[in-house]
């Protein structure tokens, strides 16, 4: 009893050091998983290739410099820099494409978002990064469609469609914030990007598909503001 009184506040009954250490380690795991809203630790991940990761980080940094240069001190939508001390947990998500089905003139890419994050946050910004191969002749017309699972059935619905003309090889970015936001409210937050070219054009993506040119999405999300309980 005397020993237990020694540590009334830490909630871990004063016990043999080994047992106490195990209890604290278990507490640490439980605390981190709870704050990440994960039921258990994720399975062993399949990390992206080093080339793809380095390119994505370089592009994100360049994008951030551009934003900071254009609006010093501001973030994406004109608000001052949010800080975690304000209690709103922010997330930055980097998602690499999974190859989907393809035909002679269209390619599908899938981006998955975890339910834990999608179910409890709102999207502040989401950008799709695509690397185009050099068109074989003149400007190449490309249709970029954002597809989402149709909640009512097995089909996909078109969330948005953008017509582009690719003049030369290089990176392009597309703001997909609205599509990802509407996705975040769904059961399976998975975004499909369909790239379609006219019949006699070849695929707009590099054929060698070198890792460092693999498409990816960068999203910023913020925990939904908890409803305020006013105490009188």
């Amino acid at each position: 009893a005397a020993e237990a009184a020694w540590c009334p506040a830490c909630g871990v009954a004063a016990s043999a050091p080994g047992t106490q250490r195990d209890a604290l380690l278990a507490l640490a795991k439980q605390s981190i998983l709870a704050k990440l809203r994960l039921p258990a630790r994720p399975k062993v991940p399949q990390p992206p290739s080093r080339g793809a990761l380095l390119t994505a980080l370089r592009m994100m940094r360049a994008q951030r410099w551009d934003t900071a240069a254009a609006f010093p001190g501001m973030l994406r939508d004109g608000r001052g820099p949010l800080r975690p001390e304000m209690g709103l947990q922010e997330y930055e998500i980097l998602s690499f494409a999974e190859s989907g089905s393809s035909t002679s003139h269209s390619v599908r890419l899938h981006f998955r978002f975890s339910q834990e994050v999608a179910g409890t946050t709102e999207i502040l910004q989401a950008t799709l990064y695509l690397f185009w191969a050099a068109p074989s002749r003149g400007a190449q017309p490309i249709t970029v469609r954002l597809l989402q699972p149709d909640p009512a059935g097995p089909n996909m619905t078109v969330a948005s469609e953008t017509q582009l003309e690719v003049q030369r090889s290089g990176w392009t970015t597309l703001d997909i914030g609205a599509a990802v936001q509407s996705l975040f409210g769904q059961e399976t937050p998975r975004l499909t990007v369909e790239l379609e070219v006219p019949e006699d054009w070849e695929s707009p993506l590099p054929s060698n598909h070198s890792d460092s040119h693999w498409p990816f999405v960068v999203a910023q999300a913020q925990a939904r503001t908890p409803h305020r309980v006013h105490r009188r």
Partner: protein
Amino acid sequence: GVDCGADSRMCCRQEFFVDFKEIGWEDWIIHPEGYHMNYCAGLCPLHVASIPGLAASFHTAVLNRIKAASAAAAVGSCCVPTQRRPLSLLYYDRDSNIVKTDIPDMIVDSCGCT
């Protein structure tokens, strides 16, 4: 605030570092290498109640004497965090996306008596 020593009995901050490698989480948590899960422990007798940390000054000493003498209703005073900061995590989620987040108030920097 005060950091706990080997035989501290008064309210203080107990350092406790969780090495993610030790708990087998280093494969999905990219950064940092561990979590400082410090916690507050120790006694908060009446004469140090409501003083964050152990302020050592003449006025405090006098105030403490008055409190101890007043034997006011001995309401329990508790040793709690008085300053905390976020834990920044970079990890792989279930779909192997890379996620960065700052979890507010996860690391205790100092403790004091309520």
